[in-house]
C-alpha cells in the first residue's frame, strides 16, 4: 500500500515537473510546480515527516507560490485567453471534483470512531496522520522531538534565520519600490 502510494505520487510529481519545465506559459509552469509541491508533501507524510509536510504546503505551496503568481501577473507575461469550449468542459468537471472531495471528507470524518480525546501534548499533524490509521501512540511525540532538536541543538541557526528573513524583507522592499529616476 505504502509503495503503491509512493509510486503514484512519484509518477505525478515527475510528470508535473516535466510539464513545468516544458510549458511555455509561466502561469501554467507555476501551477504545475504547485502540483509537485503537494506531491512532495504527501511523500513527506510517507516518510513520517508530518511537520515538514504541513510546512511544505503552508510555505511552499502557499506563501512562495502565491508570491510567484503575483509577480507573474504583475509582469503580465502572455496570459492566454481561456477557450470557451474548454471552460464549458471544465465547469462540470470542477463541480464533480468539489462534490467528490466534500463527500470524501464527510466519509473520512464519519468513519473515524477511534479519536475519543486528543492525546496530551499532540498537535494537528499527528492527529491528522492518526486519522489515516498509520500512526500509533509511539509516534505521538514526533513533532515534539523535531521541536526539541530545533530549539536546542539548532537554536543559533534558528535565531540567525530570523535575521535573514528580516534582511530579505528589507531587501525586497528596497529593490521593488518605485524609483522616479528609474530609466
Amino acid at each position, binding site marked *: 500500500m505504502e509503495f503503491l502510494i509512493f509510486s503514484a505520487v512519484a509518477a505525478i*510529481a*515527475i510528470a508535473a515537473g516535466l510539464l513545468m519545465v516544458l510549458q511555455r506559459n509561466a502561469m501554467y509552469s507555476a501551477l504545475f510546480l504547485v502540483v509537485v509541491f503537494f506531491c512532495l508533501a504527501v511523500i513527506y507524510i510517507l516518510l513520517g515527516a508530518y511537520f515538514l509536510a504541513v510546512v511544505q504546503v503552508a*510555505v511552499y505551496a502557499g506563501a512562495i507560490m502565491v508570491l*510567484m503568481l503575483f509577480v507573474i501577473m504583475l509582469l503580465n507575461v502572455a496570459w492566454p485567453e481561456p477557450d470557451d469550449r474548454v471552460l464549458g468542459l471544465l465547469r462540470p468537471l470542477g463541480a464533480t471534483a468539489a462534490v467528490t472531495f466534500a463527500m470524501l471528507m464527510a466519509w473520512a470524518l464519519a468513519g473515524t470512531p477511534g479519536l475519543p480525546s486528543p492525546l496530551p501534548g499532540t498537535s494537528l499533524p499527528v492527529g491528522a496522520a492518526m486519522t489515516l490509521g498509520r500512526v500509533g501512540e*509511539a509516534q505521538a511525540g514526533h513533532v515534539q522531538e523535531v521541536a526539541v*532538536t530545533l530549539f536546542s541543538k539548532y537554536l543559533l541557526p534558528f535565531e540567525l534565520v530570523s535575521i535573514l528573513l528580516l534582511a530579505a524583507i528589507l531587501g525586497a522592499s528596497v529593490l521593488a519600490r518605485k524609483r522616479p529616476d528609474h530609466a
Partner: protein
Amino acid sequence: MPGFPEVVPTEAYLGLSAVLFGIGALGVVLRKSALTMFMSIELMLNAVNLSLVAFGRQFGRLDGQVIVFFVMAVAAAEVAVGLAIIVDIYRSRRSVDIDDASWLRG
C-alpha cells in the same frame, strides 16, 4: 520508521529526488524566462530536501528534517529578494528574458 510492514526503500526516495533535481537543472539550462528558471531552482531545492528527509529516516535522526526546515526558510528569503530583482529588471528592460539582462557581462 520501525513498525511499518512494507517500507519503501530509501533508494526509491533518492531516485525520485535525483530525477526531480535533474528536471530542475534541465529547466535552468533550457528556459530563458527568468521566472521559469527561478521555479526550476525551487524544484531543485525541493529535490534536495527530499534527499535530506529520506536520509534522516534511513539513519533514524531528526537532523535532516531540521535542516530541511532551514532550507525552506532560506528559500523563502531567496524568493522574496529574487522576485524583487526580477521585477526591477522588468521595470528597466520590459522583459524577463535573461538574454536581455546580460549587461553585467564584462
